[in-house]
């Protein structure tokens, strides 16, 4: 039983694509004949099942738009009592805020990956520097 459990993994597939919607990803999984459980969410899909089958299906989904679909493994299975909102009395599940923050960055990361594939040269950026103590002291003293 334990060995069987160890082989079951859950992956989060987060889509930020203009051409692929979460439902397309879900349909791809529904089409597969493997015994995989999926859950559609606001940010994409959660795929649970045997490791090999999940990896195969996830690769198929990512290939739909490889630079704009992102994947990470998830520790808890979908609907787990410790994370599921249904048993926790509502609110976002732990970890959602981080995912939300990162999901907002995904279009930027996806575009950068497109540029990387096309070998677009990197622009030189001037990073803002923090004000040094000495400079601050000079400013304070100059205004006196």
């Amino acid at each position, binding site marked *: 039983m334990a060995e069987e459990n160890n082989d079951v993994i859950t992956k989060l597939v987060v889509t930020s694509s203009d051409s692929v919607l979460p439902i397309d990803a879900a349909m791809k999984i529904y089409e597969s004949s493997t015994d995989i459980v999926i859950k559609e969410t606001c940010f994409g899909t959660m795929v649970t099942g045997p490791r090999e089958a999940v990896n195969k299906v996830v690769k198929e989904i990512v290939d739909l738009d490889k630079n704009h679909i992102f994947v990470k493994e998830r520790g808890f299975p979908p609907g787990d009592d410790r994370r599921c909102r249904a048993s926790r009395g509502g609110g976002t599940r732990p970890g959602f805020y981080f995912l939300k923050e990162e999901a907002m960055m995904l279009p930027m990361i996806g575009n950068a990956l497109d540029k990387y594939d096309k070998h677009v040269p990197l622009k030189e*950026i001037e990073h803002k520097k923090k004000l040094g103590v000495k400079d601050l002291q000079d400013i304070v003293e100059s205004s006196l």
Partner: protein
Amino acid sequence: MAKVIIYPTNSLILSDLVQRFGHTPLAMMEKIKEKVTTVGVDSPPMNITAEEPKHGLKYAAVEVPAGVRGRMAIVGPMIEEAEAGIIVGESPMAFGCMGCARTNELTKYLIRSREMPLLELEFPKDDDEGQEFVYKIAEFLKSLDEVKGESEEATE
């Protein structure tokens, strides 16, 4: 293929990028999965046993809150296992659900104190920074292949 520890340890972007460029991300999610699916640990709402804070003593003193030691019991072995690291700082969300800020400080300190290839960045705020972010990570991960290839040749 190198094992790359990422910070924030549960980051979607970093985990994806490391895997995308052909390496293995050492991330919190996989370790948590081992914990929650192991028979005997699976006792909601607890994810760890009383043993974990003891294992954490290797990384943090006994005066340190048990939460830090409990987290370090999971993060510590990942740092020891790592062959390279990526730290992304200035993360506004690396506080709260992500875990105790002191655990994060300790994690970053331990990663930096390992002698291994390390890349330190900040989360991007606009498109140009995003491009630089991805390029730096991609080049870093590609350079790991070269380093690894050279060291394998040297051992042969």
